[in-house]
């Protein structure tokens, strides 16, 4: 029995392929998705390696969800047990790292989460709840709310859900490297989305031209991600490891290889890796995941090559790297000046910064209209009131308001937020009103 270990294992693995869950039988997000990956991991004997320790996923609790999300109209109405296990598995991975049972952890599980926003009316981009965000809030709740966390999302799609959740959160640096939103769902993730008034410059988006590959990805990693992390000094780095940037992925137009992904992880050395998308289930996922695991273990991954001999790999279009270099230069400029910038010029001088958005839920075909008001406060990041109207095709429109109190909310904002919640009545067009107070872990609802 391995009860007496002198050194802690290098890598914890939480593997939950949800072999009995699918969005629909022929959907990309289906039972079979991690089958070949499982076969490859087992055949490689990776779980037997001395540096690897496997963990059983826990099931996320109601409060684990409520710290991050407002599920509308209710938790059971929008999600399944598989979601709770995927989110719980991420928490298991995070706990294993925070409690030093392992040095790093990889949550290799589905369904994915990075398109799920704070307000959840249904599923979008195959995601219902945000696994990474849930684990981050779990960490801040249980291991210290001052912990600084960095997310580097390398899925081919813009991590718009995580961005939404941490947009005004000074404790979380959110960097997303994705295929240019003008050419791919969800369409967002432009250079100028840089965070709210309470966390300006802590949201960084690098839209990569379609056809970008290892060279572009690694250039951004070396020249933007690593220097920014070096300065931010996070307590924890998370890689949102979507693998749909692989050259053989059927849904995207990127040209990343298993070797490129391994090198990214070797450079980044994340504490936690969370699987996001990736739909080349036979030709990419088995190899990319093995490569990531080996890179995290500090082992030789040079033999992890796609068996097609990279037949379908296309060189990046001319000018791709040049464009990426310009983006990196621009964002480094923003990063360097983020504290000196006059926020009033960006967010105005009104006491509340107000933004209006339309959010489309492609998976569930829901259209949401959102108005977000952030209190401009110099003592905290500012409480928020979010008004949301959503409609699923011919169903009745549902209209809600959410009062959100962030971590380290100041006394003034707390008083104002609490009275705002008192004032808001579920009448005159509002179906429900919610209060989300992460610090006190108070989650109220009235209808």
């Amino acid at each position, binding site marked *: *029995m391995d*009860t007496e270990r002198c050194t802690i294992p290098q890598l914890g693995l*939480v*593997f*939950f*392929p*949800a*072999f*009995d*869950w699918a969005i629909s*039988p*022929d959907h990309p997000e*289906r*039972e*079979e998705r991690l*089958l*070949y990956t*499982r*076969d*490859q991991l*087992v*055949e*490689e*004997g*990776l779980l*037997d*390696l*001395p540096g690897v320790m*496997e*963990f*059983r*996923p826990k*099931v996320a609790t109601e409060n684990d969800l409520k710290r991050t999300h407002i599920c509308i109209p209710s938790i059971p109405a929008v999600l*399944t*047990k*598989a979601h709770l*296990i995927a989110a719980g598995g991420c928490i298991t991975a995070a706990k294993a790292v925070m409690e030093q049972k392992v040095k790093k952890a990889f949550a290799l599980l589905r369904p994915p989460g990075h398109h799920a926003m704070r307000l959840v009316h249904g599923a979008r981009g195959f995601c219902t709840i945000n696994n990474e965000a849930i684990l981050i809030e779990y960490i801040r709740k249980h291991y210290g709310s001052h912990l600084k966390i960095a997310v580097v999302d390398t899925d081919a799609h813009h991590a718009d859900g995580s961005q939404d959740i941490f947009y005004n959160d000074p404790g979380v640096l959110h960097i997303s490297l994705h295929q240019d939103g003008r050419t791919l769902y969800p369409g967002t993730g432009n250079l100028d989305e840089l965070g709210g008034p309470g966390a300006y410059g802590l949201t960084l988006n690098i839209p990569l031209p379609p056809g970008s590959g290892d060279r572009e990805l690694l250039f951004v990693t070396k020249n933007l991600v690593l220097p920014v992390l070096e300065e931010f000094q996070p307590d924890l780095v998370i890689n949102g490891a979507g693998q749909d940037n692989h050259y053989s992925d*059927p849904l995207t137009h990127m040209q990343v290889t298993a070797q490129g992904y391994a090198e990214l992880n070797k450079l980044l050395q994340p504490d936690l890796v969370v699987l996001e998308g990736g739909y080349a289930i*036979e030709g990419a996922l*088995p*190899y990319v995941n*093995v490569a990531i695991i*080996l890179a995290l273990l500090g*082992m*030789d991954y*040079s*033999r*992890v*090559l*796609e*068996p*097609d001999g990279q037949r379908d790999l296309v060189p990046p279009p001319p000018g791709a790297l040049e464009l990426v270099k310009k983006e990196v230069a621009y964002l480094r400029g923003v990063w360097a000046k983020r504290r000196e910038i006059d926020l009033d010029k960006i967010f105005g001088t009104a006491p509340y910064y107000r933004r209006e958005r339309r959010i489309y839920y492609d998976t569930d075909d829901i259209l949401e209209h959102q108005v977000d008001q952030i209190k401009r406060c110099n003592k905290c990041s500012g409480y928020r009131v979010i008004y949301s109207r959503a409609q699923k095709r011919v169903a009745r429109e549902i209209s809600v308001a959410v009062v959100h109190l962030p971590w380290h909310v100041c006394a003034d904002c707390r008083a104002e937020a609490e009275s705002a919640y008192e004032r808001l009545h579920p009448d005159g067009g509002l179906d429900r009103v919610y209060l989300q107070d992460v610090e006190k872990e108070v989650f109220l609802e009235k209808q």
Partner: protein
Amino acid sequence: MRYIIGIDVGGTNTNACLLVIDQGGQGHVLKMAKAPTRHEDLFTSTRQALAEISDEISSADCRDLEIHLSTTLITNAIVEGKGDPVATIITTGPGLAPEAMGFAFPVSLVGGVIDHRGRETAPLVMDEVRSALKAAVDQGARAVAVVGKFSPRNPGHELAIEDLIQQEFPGLYPPTLGHRLSGRLNFPRRVNTCYLNAKVARLQREFIDRIRDTLLWELAALSARTGQEAQKTRLRVFLLKADGGTIEMEKAVNRPVETILSGPAASVMGALALTEPSESCVVVLDIGGTTTDIAVLVGGKPLAEKDGAVVGGFKTLVPAFFSRSIGLGGDSTVSYQEGRIKIGPTRAGTAAALGGDALTPTDAIVLTEQGSFGDYQRALTVLENFSRNTGGSPRELAEEIHQAFCEQAVAAINGIFADLNSCPVYTVSEVLVPRGLKPEKIIGLGGPAAFYIPRIAHLLGVPYEVLPYYEGANAVGAAASRPTAAITLRADTALGKVTIPELDQVTDLARPALFDRRKAEQLALESARGYAEKIGAYYPEAQFEVDEEEVFNMVRGFYTVGKLFTMKAQVKPDVIKVVPK
């Protein structure tokens, strides 16, 4: 009448048991025997134990005699690194570098790749196979292990290498091929398993020849005593395997590695044979001289190792009961560290009360039991001497030793359950079923069981049962075991192929679109039966079952292109119920 002799060659003692099987198929113990194990000569101990019980066989009506042998031969050979030099030929493909797989022996990598669905993505490079074999032969290798990554999904490369060996290297022993030993995935374990198998094959062959001679000699002696002709008795010899099943000895020549760790399996089979099945979670404790083996029954069935047995540091794919061995037994050392008594983990030797000179838990038992066995005075002296360091009376010291013994056993049991409860599972329903396994009952066997089991059970707060014939209940278990055999069926209707690696079978499906779950199950069951017949694991009452099953729809570009079936079918594991007198 049908008789079965069970022999368990343990670390300290060799136990034997003679069962007679009645018309209803139940076993009755006619005789138990015990001899000290001589590690330098397992045959003598085996023969000694055998001689003692064969007297009881009423040879007038002995039509069928089976001998079930559980030995430590292969386990010890592996642990001690004995056997032939092996040429291990592997093919890999994308993934972990062979150097990173941590093999404790040299491997020769040759070109050729099979992918996860069993498709050849690079052909086998025959010239590399040839030169690897030549080099190995030049270095003295006679045995060969051949293992390809994903070979259970397509054994083509392994079979081609076997052909080449037969034609071009007739001096080599028949190679061990990966796909024949296991249809499960896990390449490094499959390589270890085949390497060990190839390495000890000759030892097993020699052992089997000698055992056959020994048994024929015993049988001749039996006939001579009774005037009965030996030929009238049909003698079959089986070896016990790590999964508690038996394998016919002559067939075990090709699969020696499966006979490892039969000792812990014999204890579990003893518990199954001698108790009524229980729905609760039962801990089986076999307290021996040197070690205590701990196994777990859930719903009346033994838990199995998730991937396979681990022996001598080698992780294998050999099916095995879940069992953990701790250095705690009647002959363990007793030491005094930081004000506490500690038992084991090493063996002290024979107890003072039994003629040795070291203080052991057995001496403490002799003192507490006031000399119901052993030499009370010698036990008292050795405890008195030791109590000069610890303070207190010899009687108090004996109690402290008992307490430490039981506490260490309970700590080990609790550690095992903590591990079991963190076992990963892969589907929604499995995660949601509360798997808070906890010990609910103890079944004990082994020499010190009668004394220690009640105390351990008390400390753990659960009921207990000490097996009848507890001192040699593992031999009863060996006798009560029945054959096991399993096949793996993999059907890929998109590729139109069915593969059953254990049978060397890769066949094209005539009409893949019509191949469904029912057909797959039917084929798996038929194949399991054919395989059992082939390897000598078939018996008339044997039942066959599909034990594991996975079915996936394969969707490509929003169209269902086929189904994947993976099934394990087997002889349903069984045990002969033994009715105590």
